[in-house]
């Protein structure tokens, strides 16, 4: 109880310090900011004991061409896109940076503040916003619908309890939670087959999602040695060892290229077709 109090006090001071310094996170873009809102660690640390991890997800070589999405069945949604129309979002590269990489501390974390605040997942123009979302276990996820048409939100985790809810009109919200760490939880809309999102659930607040420029930043990480893991829906996972020193910024960069497409992507259960038997075997791909 007492240490909890001091942790909170220190965290408040840290927030004030971060705010005064501009947050030290200039590289995070919109997607990362969305995830940042869901990062309760930003609320409570002792500045003399924490540092920051930041870096880039770089993409080299030819960028895979994303397929166009046929949204003609939902004219209201299709109208929200430019002349080129909506494109798939699985590989988004801008000026050499890869967006929507979920970066989180996978080893070395001991103890973490409880989740607070709510993460948000919206449905805008028949797309999930953000495409990749990070949350802390037990944290509220406010799911809303900005489209005035029916979406269902079908989350199919393997470690957590799944849900399959619908939002038939704009303005409807629903709050959900995942209680156990799980990277990743796929989310889809069964009405619109192209709608896909991923929710990374970790039991601490030290995670981020790379923004449109490929940058990320995880603030308020207690000093220590960690393993950092980066997850991407097409390129699988990479890890890096980082040492965080109090008051300093550690840098970890992840490199991607088109040849890594098709890597094993850890995500709950995979359905593997056994040819010739007409059966589907369920296989865990951890």
């Amino acid at each position, binding site marked *: 109880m007492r240490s909890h109090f001091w942790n909170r006090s220190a965290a408040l001071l840290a927030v004030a310090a971060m705010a005064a310094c501009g947050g030290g996170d200039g590289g995070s873009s919109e997607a990362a900011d969305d995830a940042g809102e869901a990062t309760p660690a930003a609320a409570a640390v002792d500045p003399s004991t924490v540092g920051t991890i930041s870096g880039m997800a770089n993409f080299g070589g030819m960028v895979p061409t994303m397929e166009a999405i046929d949204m003609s069945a939902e004219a209201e949604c299709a109208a929200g896109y430019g002349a080129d129309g909506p494109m798939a979002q699985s590989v988004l590269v801008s000026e050499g940076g890869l967006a929507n990489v979920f970066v989180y501390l996978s080893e070395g974390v001991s103890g973490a503040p409880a989740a607070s605040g709510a993460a948000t997942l919206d449905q805008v123009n028949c797309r999930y916003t953000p495409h990749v979302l990070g949350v802390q276990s037990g944290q509220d996820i406010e799911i809303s619908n900005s489209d005035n048409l*029916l979406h*269902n939100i*079908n989350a*199919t985790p393997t470690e957590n*309890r*799944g*849900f*399959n*809810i*619908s*939002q*038939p*009109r704009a*303005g*409807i*919200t*629903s*709050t959900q939670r995942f209680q156990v760490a799980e990277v990743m939880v796929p989310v889809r809309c069964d009405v619109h087959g192209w709608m896909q999102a991923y929710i990374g659930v970790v039991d601490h607040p030290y995670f981020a999602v790379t923004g449109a420029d490929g940058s990320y930043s995880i603030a308020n990480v207690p000093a220590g040695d960690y393993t950092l893991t980066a997850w991407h829906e097409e390129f699988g996972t990479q890890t890096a060892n980082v040492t965080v020193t109090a008051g300093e910024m550690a840098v970890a960069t992840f490199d991607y290229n088109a040849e890594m497409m098709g890597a094993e992507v850890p995500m709950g259960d995979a*359905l593997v077709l056994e040819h010739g038997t007409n*059966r*589907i075997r*369920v296989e865990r791909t951890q």
Partner: protein
Amino acid sequence: MATIVAEATGQAILHEEHEQSFLRKYIFSTDHKVIAIQFLIYTLFFLMIGGLLAMLMRYQIAWPARGELPLGGIFPESMVASGYILPEFYNALVTMHGSVMVFLAIMPMLVGVWANYLIPLQLGTHDMAFPRLNMLSFWAMVPAGILTLASFFVVGGAAGAGWTLYAPLSARPDLTGVGLGQILWLAALVFIGLSSILGSVNYITTTINMRAPGMTWMRMPLTIWSLFITAILALLAMPVLSAAGIMLIFDQTIGTSFFLPEGGGQPLLWQHLFWFFGHPEVYILILPAMGFTSEILSVGSRKPVFGYKAMVLALVSIAFLGFIVWGHHMFQSGMNPMLGLTFTVSTLFIAVPSAIKTFNWMGTMWRGNLQLHSAMLFAIGFVAMFAIGGLSGVFMASTPVDIYIHDTYFIVAHIHYVLFGGSLFALFGAIYFWYPKMFGRMMNETMGKIHFWLTFVFFNLVFFPMHGVGMVGMMRRIYDSTGYAHLQGIEDTNAIITWAAFGLFASGFLFAFNFFWSLKKGRKAEANPWNATTLEWQTPSPPKHGNWEEIPVVYHGPHEYSHPDVEDKDWLAQNERPDVVSPAAGSH
């Protein structure tokens, strides 16, 4: 506990009465009449719940874009959000409306209430063959009701795969978002199966073994015949559903794949098992209603039932044919055309005994001294509505027509003409008819007649237009029909149906008021207020524990009205000695 010794000769009966505790008399009673009243209260409650679910459905169907559900704020966010009924809650409403009405309202009201109440009284015996099993058959329904109600409030909500529970929708939570709710309903179904099986064993045994002296098979009232045949159907059909339900629970909980193709199972197996139960179930839901109607029409027309033996044979024929037609529910699932033709032909055969019964009811009323009290009005309403429901059933029996209209509102109209216009009309009639025997007071006739006319008018306003809506192609379980080009233009019809449904639901409250008001304020009933012939009317109203001081001896058939050899009255009770009434009024 009373000691009962019935002597087959109809001589003196030893029947010891002693004080019972409140708990044994009213809660854990083994008296068939108390158990029947327990079933009646239970089923009326679930009839109201089922109706309430239907009203929520109708609101959504009529005004899918409006939101603003009245009292929407009292529902959790997982059911109603921003005034909108959510699609998954709508699925639960559709599923549980059908499930509650079939399994917790209509079926136990037809059988649990009236088989319990009438079999010992009309057969002239003290109680059921197995009174404790009888008590258990009611108390097995209690956890079923609790599980059903609880399922609405668990994560994921109540079952949403339709009342037919088709796999894999019902077997895989990820497809509907419903996990525990589905399991709870299946568990409830197992309890319902247990109740039904226990009850059926009792009804069959009692009917075969405990008839009063002189109560030959062909002197049994048609009500008893219908309940007896129904009990046989239930005994053969319910175990199939219970077994299938347990298999489905296993698929959901311990990883079996009876009905899941990814594990080598067959979704079609579920359909076969369900409908092998399901079609006999249709007759479980209508045969008792036919029995009540025959009885009430005969009393209300002051004439014997026209073609008594033909009526019995028709009941038996319907029951037999009911077991070989289940495939007609699965035409859309795909089957060999020759098999489809077989099911078409066997289904059409059922029209023959059904028509025999319909014409015999009209023959019973023909040139009768009609007494249009509430019970009689509902019985006549039954005949008319059943005829419409039966005729629309002929459409469905034909494979090529069925494939077009099966998953539309046409079938919703059909099932409600049979199950509401049929079964429930007859049930209302039965309650008005036997209420004085049950509670010793008459229900208010004025309120009863208003209730009938409101129900009759609103019922037809609700369900007749559904034939048309279905022919246009409105899908039977659709959440929001407004987004489909081929369904443009039916919005007003849907709104009218919904307003009429509200009226229908409201008229039910008039019945409920009459029911409870009459318990205290109703005119005291004499033993035989309808001048009826069957044995239950020859005991006080209500009958005492044990029913009879002496087991009656039966001399006549069940419907001896306007007997030519009886001069001072137009009826002859089954237990009236012929030599006392008139030397010529011999055994019939």
